């Protein structure tokens, strides 16, 4: 691996803030999101030889994070949908740490989307990736990504317009 391994570590460190942002759109709280980022970094470093240099490191890492999130399993997310004990206190703590009510509100709304729509919204709206990049991370054709994104956005619009609006 040698120096290319070193390069990869540096690139991962550089991308950690973005990985955390992406993870926050999938996990319900900051702790779980950072668990996902940690798992992603570990897996990426362990599988450095699988990285294809003609691909972007960011896309590769997003793909690993997405898989880790799926691996975490539906049982966990079912539990989350009911809110875990202390979750509210934890999320209030996150808010106190400066993430803001708007972020919590959007996380809450995103959590209500089906997984595939949530991923599409996370990759395109949160991360700002192109349709092509997002489709490649989700391993689906661009057309599939587009329709998931459209449905996710529509659901998000209607959820957010029902909320009374969050004061700044």
């Amino acid at each position, binding site marked *: 691996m040698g120096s290319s391994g070193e390069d990869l570590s540096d690139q991962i460190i550089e991308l950690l803030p973005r990985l955390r942002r992406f993870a926050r759109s999938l996990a319900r709280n900051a702790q779980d999101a950072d668990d996902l980022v940690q798992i992603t970094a570990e897996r990426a470093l362990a599988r450095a030889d699988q990285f294809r240099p003609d691909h972007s490191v960011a896309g590769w890492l997003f793909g690993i994070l997405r898989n880790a999130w799926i691996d975490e399993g539906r049982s966990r997310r079912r539990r989350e949908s009911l809110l*875990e004990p202390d979750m509210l206190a934890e*999320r209030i703590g996150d*808010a106190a740490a*400066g993430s803001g009510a708007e972020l919590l509100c959007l996380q809450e709304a995103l959590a209500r989307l089906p997984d595939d729509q949530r991923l599409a919204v996370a990759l395109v709206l949160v991360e700002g990736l192109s349709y092509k990049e997002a489709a490649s991370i989700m391993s689906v054709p661009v057309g599939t990504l587009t329709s998931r994104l459209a449905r996710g956005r*529509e659901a998000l619009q209607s959820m957010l317009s029902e909320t009374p609006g969050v004061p700044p």
Partner: protein
Amino acid sequence: MTFSEEVLMAYADDELDASTRAAVDAAMATDPEIARRIARHKALRGRVHSAFNKVLDEPVPARVLEVVRSHQSAPPKGNVMPLRPRQVRRWSWPQLTAIAASLVVGVIAGRLTLMRAGSPGPFMTRGDRLLAAGALAAALSNQLAGEQSPANPVRIGVTFRAKSGEYCRTFALREDGGLAGLACRAGDGWQLGVLARAESSSGGAQTYRQATSTLPAAVVAAVGERMAGEPLDQHAEAAARGRHWRP
């Protein structure tokens, strides 16, 4: 010319090929409805993006950085980092005070789940404080722990004097998914000190009945920090109610 919502969305995301884009541009010039729909897609995109952008400004937790850094300095082969056990969050009183100050934030975010549209809800804000309202306020003022039935919407747990003198009571709500918390007397009202989910998220009578024994850790911690001496017994509790909870 009409366009599907997907095409207008792709326009907002700058994902259209040049000719479709030109067609949308032309249509937009004569149809304000198309412009409005595109603006709606752009607004949502902007809203989501800028909310999550705040995460970029947060410091990366040391435990995450450590995973990569230790890999950098370690021998190149056979180095598998064990995943650290998930840290259990323990709240200190200053932290809980900070939480209380920002409680209203959590309540707003929780509104999607907690509050049915149109109902007044168990909380209200006054300035930057969160106060009990409605059935919760009534229960805190009037209900004695020894005289409550499962039909009550609020279950009162322990009552005690805080180190600063005022009376405080723990409570659990039967509705709203089993929220539990601590409220302390402030003037004629009850100020919320901490609020958390009850241990069981399955809800229902079981959670309600066990509410005192399964208070969320955050609430238990807050009680421990605040309480002076022992919890009130039923006579002291009734006497305090008789004095309208004045110290």
